[in-house]
């Protein structure tokens, strides 16, 4: 009797269990899904399609932070460095790019960058953000809403052309700049983003098994800093220097604004770098550490160099050093140890100092606010150093079959290849676009406008009244 009862109970139990566990996921599977959340692994059953609150919240914050880097961070960092009469023109460029790139991204930019298509360019499947819902897309993140990933990436797409502003400040026509940037997004940014970060990207060594160039770019050394920095160099060479450059004093109208912008950039950069783990996981934590160390060390390096060479550290020097450290660690941030980050900060400080304070003077080009000197030099250096210093201890994804053979060996060659190709693309495209736009719209303001200031002439407003 007892046995019967036992067996009966058992049967009932098992039946219940099997109905529960057959069609529906088992306890084991459900636990595995829940635990996957902690390891940033993909859920397989019950939690498929649900964003994970911790990761999702962090990515929303990160997206906000990266926007904050542009508005008002970069706008102030750059705006403080120009003359009073041109401050609004810088702000207008940052604002305008934020608006227009948002529209482009919705129209087709996100799709061209991140949807599957060719190795070089995405498809149009996600244009108008169709199908880009709040459920995670496992190609980019198991736990972050796909549409939040899209917004997060939008913020990168906004700041990248924004960086170019620094090289052409105080002399380029507003309309020409906007048109240039819109075209440049299609020719340079979307393809670069797709090649390096798209799930089927040609140079996406980290995630694409069939990538031809197995490069890694954690948060945009190539995609953000090299594209913008090298294009900026070309653009400022083609535009020519500002009137009076090298002859009359052209000094920052507000180092205070510049420093405020620097603080905002540093703060926002945590979203940029630690957010690029697309999770609040261990990789993100490591990226946070590397970012901090490189920024702090870069700042100190500039201060020390200036102390030695001119006897006093300057505010602009410290700001430049911090931003240089941040830009240079970007591609490496999620891949390198604290010691690696310190080394990168050190080299970043030295290299960007030389570029801004020596190279520019030697060659006489007018990279107004040192987009090339900081971002191209930093981004390029960081991309290369990531090749040498990346380690699977910091980022377990480097232990994947598709890439582990390269790590610690010839990864830097892949980095060089990818960097070189994107550099070539940026340079070439900028030359072509410049000439087209210069012939049609005219790239440069008139001499009189340059004297009067772009704010009044191009926007009908003044930065400050007395």
């Amino acid at each position: 009797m007892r046995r019967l009862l036992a067996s009966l109970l058992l049967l009932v139990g098992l039946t219940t269990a099997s109905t529960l566990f057959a069609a529906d996921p088992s306890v084991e599977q459900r636990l595995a899904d829940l635990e996957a959340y902690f390891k940033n692994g993909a859920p397989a059953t019950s939690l498929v399609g649900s964003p994970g609150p911790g990761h999702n919240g962090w990515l929303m914050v990160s997206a906000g932070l990266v926007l904050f880097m542009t508005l008002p961070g970069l706008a102030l960092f750059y705006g403080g460095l120009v003359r009073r009469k041109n401050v609004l023109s810088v702000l207008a460029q940052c604002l305008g790019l934020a608006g227009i790139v948002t529209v482009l991204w919705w129209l087709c930019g996100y799709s061209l960058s991140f949807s599957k298509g060719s190795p070089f360019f995405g498809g149009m499947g996600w244009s108008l953000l169709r199908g880009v819902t709040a459920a995670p897309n496992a190609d980019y993140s198991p736990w972050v809403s796909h549409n939040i990933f899209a917004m997060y990436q939008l913020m990168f797409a906004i700041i990248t052309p924004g960086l170019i502003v620094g090289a052409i400040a105080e002399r380029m026509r507003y309309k020409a700049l906007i048109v240039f940037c819109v075209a440049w997004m299609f020719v340079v940014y979307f393809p670069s983003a797709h090649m390096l970060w798209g799930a089927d990207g040609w140079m996406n060594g980290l995630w694409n098994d069939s990538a031809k160039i197995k490069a890694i770019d954690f948060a945009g050394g190539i995609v953000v800093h090299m594209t913008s920095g090298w294009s900026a160099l070309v653009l400022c060479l083609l535009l020519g220097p500002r009137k009076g450059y090298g002859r009359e004093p052209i000094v920052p109208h507000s180092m205070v604004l510049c420093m405020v912008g620097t603080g905002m950039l540093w703060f926002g950069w945590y979203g940029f770098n630690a957010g690029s783990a697309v999770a609040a996981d261990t990789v993100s934590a490591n990226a946070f550490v590397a970012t901090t160390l490189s920024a702090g060390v870069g700042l100190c390096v500039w201060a020390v160099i200036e102390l030695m060479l001119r006897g006093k550290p300057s505010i602009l020097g410290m700001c430049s050093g911090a931003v240089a450290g941040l830009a240079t660690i970007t591609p490496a941030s999620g891949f390198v140890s604290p010691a690696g980050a310190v080394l990168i900060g050190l080299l970043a400080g030295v290299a960007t100092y030389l570029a801004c304070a020596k190279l520019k003077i030697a060659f006489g080009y007018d990279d107004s606010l040192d987009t090339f000197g900081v971002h191209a030099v930093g981004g390029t250096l960081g991309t290369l150093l990531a090749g040498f210093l990346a380690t699977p201890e910091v980022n377990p994804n480097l232990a994947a079959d598709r890439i582990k053979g390269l790590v610690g060996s010839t990864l830097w060659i892949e980095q060089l290849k990818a960097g070189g190709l994107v550099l070539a693309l940026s340079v070439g495209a900028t030359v072509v676009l410049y000439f087209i736009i210069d012939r049609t719209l005219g790239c440069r303001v008139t001499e009189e406008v340059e004297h009067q200031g772009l704010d009044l002439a191009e926007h009908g407003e003044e930065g400050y009244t007395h």
Partner: protein
Amino acid sequence: MKRIEAIIKPFRLEDVKDALHEAGVVGMTVSEVKGFGRQKGHTEIYRGAEYTVDFLPKLKVELVVADHQVPTAVAAIIKGAKTGKIGDGKIFVTAVEEAIRIRTEERGEAAV
């Protein structure tokens, strides 16, 4: 009446004002100016680019006084402004033909 215009170092303003007060001069008008003279400016370096800033911040103090007050006023300004170091500034005296107090439309010395 005379118009006395003094270019002084900014941080001497309080002393000049006090000295003028003691000398019985109440009205004056001050403006911020940039001076260029023998006193050397300084060099600013921004990311390696060097700029010599020749123009130094100065204050211009203007006062219109009755003729007989000129010596006292000038002495007071010197007393307040003099540090003995280069760049102390200048005092210029010019003739004023007429002065009018807007509020009362008084004219001449009564107006200053």
